[in-house]
């Protein structure tokens, strides 16, 4: 059910522009939801399940720490 792509942002500028990639890593879920930065596994899982409306599956998975930032560290994409 999960297909993943790693995209080298500078090599595919059209795609980077389409998803407004100005810093990396940036994850796009189902072409719509944006996750900026190197987030934890739990945060990414939450965003994925939320994107497909299956938040209920989060039960049993360790909830993200409240102090955790919604976005993780990023690096700017060079020109």
């Amino acid at each position: 059910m999960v297909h993943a792509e790693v995209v080298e942002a500078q090599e595919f500028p059209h795609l980077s522009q389409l998803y407004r990639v100005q810093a990396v890593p940036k994850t796009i879920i189902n072409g719509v939801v944006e996750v900026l930065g190197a987030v934890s596994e739990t945060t990414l899982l939450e965003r994925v399940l939320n994107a497909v409306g299956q938040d209920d599956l989060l039960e049993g998975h360790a909830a993200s720490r409240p102090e955790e930032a919604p976005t993780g560290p990023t690096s700017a994409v060079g020109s």
Partner: protein
Amino acid sequence: MPILSEQDRKTLQTRFKKDLKRDVTLTLYTVRSVGGLVLPGRECQTCSQTEELLTEMTKISPHISLIIKDFYVEAEETQAKGIDRIPCITLQAEGDEPSNLLFYGIPAGFEILTLIEDIVAASRGVSPLQLSARKALRKLETKVHLQVFVTPG
């Protein structure tokens, strides 16, 4: 001149020897040139470097092999796999289905680590995710498409 330094090669050799269990086949979708020439509109800036890099990796471990396919010649296959640009790398461990992971672009700089970790995970057949995350993902009813944008760093 090789892309991987002698030091990189030694580090990878140790890592692959320790962690690779099953054979892993990498498939590179690329554009093959004829006498150094590529048809206009089919130019690919990093295809030949990607091929060189992956070929070097196959020489480091007998568990890694490489299949090279021309994106334009294998149009039907690439379409079926949803591959729409090159260079593109896919991987498959012996006895497993092809992985649902595509690498678009050259895995240069720190990005090579991502590819290496995925080769190791595929070879060992063990997901690095927490058990509870795997359980949740197994119950997904909708397809999830993740696109992770990176740079070589």
